[in-house]
């Protein structure tokens, strides 16, 4: 059976590129190196119960089968007739499709927004204000001796981040005590098993040598890579951390500013900040100042709670302050595998990374006004095209209600909550499994997506579907100009 190596994983922003897939009769039958989410996707993507396999259109309140050309013509008509359509999603498709999507948004005078507006949108706002000192994940892997995760639980959201780039990996210039500890533990366990087996075979007692390396790295680590986790509850990632700081919900801003004061050698005249005792905070800040090269990874724990982009302002400023004492960088933990690509492609073509409004004939960018949740909550849009995303499941109730009450076109391989509520469903292929392309990892490194199997008969790549809708829209507009 053919084994396809070096496949990129189309799930999270870590965008692992070492997946090995065994393919039998056009179906993935075995997955190596992937995390639980990656394995679940590669082994279940073709489950026909949860897959859109035919184009559907809503008639008399029910979704019924239709032809691809009919569904596309109807979609083009909806978008052309709408005065303020929303084109939303984009983070789980390839850059090629996003590029066509931007053209379509401009042609129909709509809003082009990607999922970063409900993910790291506030981070982008803040980065535009303050700038960011960052690097690629390879630098972290090989050089960083201090890893900080703030408001992020990589164990749950980016399962192989710790193993590939941070605490559990051995870098060229930065060894990992955890890695050695785990290897030692495996060795010792193997040795014990052998001894037990020889005892049983030889029927005599064999002396077991003393076990070395059983002290957890948290106790013996002095020179090795350290891990700090700051979160509102003790997440799974926090269990591996050398220091875990439990901050009260919605008080990250206070804690960040208090840490900035400590970095600047100022004194805190309180006993605790945001539920964290000041002496604990002093210890953590000492570790941050004492490292050679540190990285602060921050998750949506900062962007979604009170303060939003102001929390990121404080985190970026903390990194800037730390750079007066040592070398420190910062990086957002991006969620979808190509959300960074959605921002990058949008910036190439329009100048803005998300929430771009074309209704005036030129791109306008003002998150809070032109962002998907805001235009929907104010009930301003009159149609929507959703691609590679599930806003009905992921948006607050009022926004989702206003999304489904107007004509809704969905391009998705899966029967998502949004697809169930759609008026037109266009079945697409799984990018990174059935369609190739380009996507950007969370550190803005572009990597190729592979096509490992052939797609089902009626499913087309996102890029092709969008190109055909765009062609239909142009035809309709030309016709309207003539009449």
């Amino acid at each position: 059976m053919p084994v396809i190596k070096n496949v990129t994983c189309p799930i999270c922003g870590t965008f692992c590129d070492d997946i090995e897939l065994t393919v039998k009769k056009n179906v993935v039958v075995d997955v190596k190196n992937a995390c639980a989410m990656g394995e679940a996707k590669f082994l279940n993507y073709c489950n026909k119960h949860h897959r859109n396999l035919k184009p559907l259109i809503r008639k008399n309140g029910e979704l019924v089968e239709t032809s691809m050309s009919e569904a596309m013509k109807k979609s083009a008509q909806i978008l052309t007739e709408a005065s303020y359509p929303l084109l939303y999603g984009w983070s789980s498709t390839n850059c090629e499709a996003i590029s066509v999507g931007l053209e379509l948004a401009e042609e129909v005078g709509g809003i082009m927004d990607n999922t970063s507006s409900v993910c790291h949108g506030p981070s982008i706002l803040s980065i535009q204000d303050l700038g960011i000192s960052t690097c690629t994940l390879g630098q972290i892997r090989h050089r960083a001796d201090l890893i900080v995760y703030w408001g992020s639980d990589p164990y749950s959201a980016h399962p192989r981040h710790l193993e590939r780039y941070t605490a559990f990996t051995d870098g060229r210039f930065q060894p990992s005590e955890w890695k050695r500890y785990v290897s030692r533990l495996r060795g010792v366990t193997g040795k014990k098993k052998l001894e037990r087996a020889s005892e049983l075979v030889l029927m005599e007692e064999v002396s077991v040598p003393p076990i070395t390396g059983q002290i957890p790295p948290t106790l013996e680590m002095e020179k090795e890579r350290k891990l700090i986790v700051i979160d509102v509850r003790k997440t799974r990632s926090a269990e591996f951390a050398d220091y875990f700081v439990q901050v009260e919900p919605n008080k990250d801003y206070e804690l960040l500013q208090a840490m900035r004061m400590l970095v600047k050698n100022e004194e805190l005249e309180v006993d605790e900040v945001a539920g964290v005792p000041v002496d604990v905070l002093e210890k953590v800040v000492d570790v941050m100042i004492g490292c050679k090269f540190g990285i602060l990874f921050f998750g949506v724990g900062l962007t979604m709670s009170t303060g939003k982009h102001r929390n990121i302002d404080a985190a970026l400023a903390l990194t800037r302050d730390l750079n007066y004492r040592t070398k420190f960088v910062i990086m957002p933990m991006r969620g979808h595998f190509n959300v960074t690509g959605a921002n990058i492609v949008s910036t190439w073509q329009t100048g803005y990374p998300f929430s771009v409004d074309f209704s005036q004939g030129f791109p306008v960018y003002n998150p809070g006004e032109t962002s998907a949740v805001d235009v929907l909550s104010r009930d301003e849009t009159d149609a929507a095209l959703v691609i590679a995303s599930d806003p009905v499941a992921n948006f607050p109730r009022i926004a989702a209600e206003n999304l489904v009450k107007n004509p809704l076109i969905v391009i998705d391989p899966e029967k998502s909550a949004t697809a169930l509520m759609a008026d037109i469903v266009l079945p697409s292929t799984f990018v990174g499994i059935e369609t190739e392309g380009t996507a950007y990892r969370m550190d803005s490194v572009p990597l190729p997506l592979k096509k490992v199997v052939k797609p089902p008969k009626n499913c087309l790549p996102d890029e092709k579907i969008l190109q055909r809708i765009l062609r239909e829209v142009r035809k309709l507009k030309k016709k309207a100009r003539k009449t």
Partner: protein
Amino acid sequence: MEKMKVTLLSGRTINQGTGKEHGKTSKEYYESVAICEIDPDDLKVLGIKEGANVKISTKFGSVVVKTIESMRAPHPKIVYMPYGPWVNVIVNPKTHGTGMPSFKGIPAEIEASSPSDCVLNLQELLKQTFRKT
């Protein structure tokens, strides 16, 4: 019935991540998302057993989900729900001019649900919320 004021957080869990890859209409997704993780001490105060249904209400709505005893305790008065349609019925849609709704740190109230309230599956929840099937 005992009510408790709590802070509601929503976020990712590894089971939610794998559940969504099985399909949004799958049993795996339903079982991993239509839940809330509660501190064991809070469960005692509320007189609720693990696995029982609980009603969580905010200013923006209410939803019935299954309780799970949190493995991440202690986090008194903090209730955690995985991202998904069940929690998003009750999150704060205000974006404060940033585009980002408040998915975390929402004041909420929690109580044991009445026996007639059951946890709706995805299709039932969508029908109830959007009156569309």
